[in-house]
């Protein structure tokens, strides 16, 4: 078995899964993930729907995505053990070492801050990569297109300041 599938097979497989989820044959709704993350956080921190307006507002969609994310965990685990064979405990990504630093403390601190910004930002925007860019883009949603331009544009500009310059090969 190959250890990785090329981008075009990944793209075709992902769109077939999207057809299934989006249609009445599957779940009759598009895939999203950040509402599920927020919903899981309300479970973890005991923010119930009776007392918190936002929990009540996202309860239906959040529960669906929360259960889906449990499936994601097992799908990732199965693939990393049997297909990509990439399962191992690691602390710092290789490219981070090359373009930022080799400090575990620094990577952990930035990971926490970035994780916070990702979920907080996604909730403010009403969706993430999956909900806005992939599912939104597939419906030609103007909200998804605005999100994609602002988020990816910010990422490119931020990346330029945050990381060291790319080394030239020569």
């Amino acid at each position, binding site marked *: 078995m190959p250890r990785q599938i090329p981008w075009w097979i*990944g*793209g075709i497989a*992902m*769109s077939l899964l*999207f057809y299934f*989820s*989006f*249609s009445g044959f*599957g779940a009759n709704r598009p*895939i999203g*993930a950040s509402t599920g*993350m*927020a919903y899981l*956080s*309300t*479970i973890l*921190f005991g923010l*119930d729907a009776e007392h918190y*307006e936002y929990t009540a507002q996202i309860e239906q969609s959040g*529960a669906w995505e929360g259960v889906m994310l449990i*499936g994601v965990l097992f*799908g*990732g*685990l199965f*693939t*990393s053990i049997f*297909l990509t064979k990439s*399962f*191992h*405990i*690691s602390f710092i990504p*290789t490219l*981070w070492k090359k373009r930022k630093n080799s400090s575990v403390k620094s990577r*952990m601190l930035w*990971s*926490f*801050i*970035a*994780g*916070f*910004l*990702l*979920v*907080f930002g*996604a909730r*403010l925007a*009403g969706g993430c*990569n*999956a909900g806005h860019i992939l599912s*939104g883009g597939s419906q*030609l*949603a103007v*909200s*998804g297109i605005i*999100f994609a331009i*602002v988020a990816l544009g*910010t*990422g*490119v500009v931020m*990346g330029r300041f945050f990381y060291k310059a790319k080394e030239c090969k020569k």
Partner: protein
Amino acid sequence: MMDRIVNMFHIVANEGHGSVFVVLVIGFFFGAIIAYSRLDKFEKMAGFMIFEDTLVPRMAMTTVALSSVGFYFLVHFGYATFAVKPILLTGLVLGAFLFGIGLVILGKCPSAFFVSVSEGRVDTFVGVLGGMVGGAIFTYLYPLMKVWMGPDLGTPQVFDYFIDHSLLVVLIFSTILLITAYFLPTIEFRDPADFKEKE
């Protein structure tokens, strides 16, 4: 906490968006495709924004190109309904801005969080903890924030502006994405950590 977790499955079982089994299967394949294409790696997700890898934009463009045509016909023939997110303009732009900063630093999107954790990446687990705090603080502050997240500009789709030619718009959109994905140069950051056994 346990009762909330049980309730989560109970809601899914009763809300009519697929059985719990179907939702878990959708999640399983979603996670498996992300992991098998290596989309969850920092080198791919942050890498494309710092010009080290082009897998993410090529795969995302292919997905959106094929899904946009498929979704259009599924809705046209009555097998699905569009579920478009609203434009709450201030929240959308500010949220996307914060999300973009988080994305280039952590190198994972919320879909890939659990994939990376299941692969043994401790830094992503810390990112998930940050995300949990982010989600909880948003929930806590929501009554204060919802008042300035607008204006609500509704749920427009691009083809709403071209009512008589909606299929043509979808086909043009899809074609542009497919051609761009195909002609983007192949830049791949080959992570030595992934290929130890082979070398």
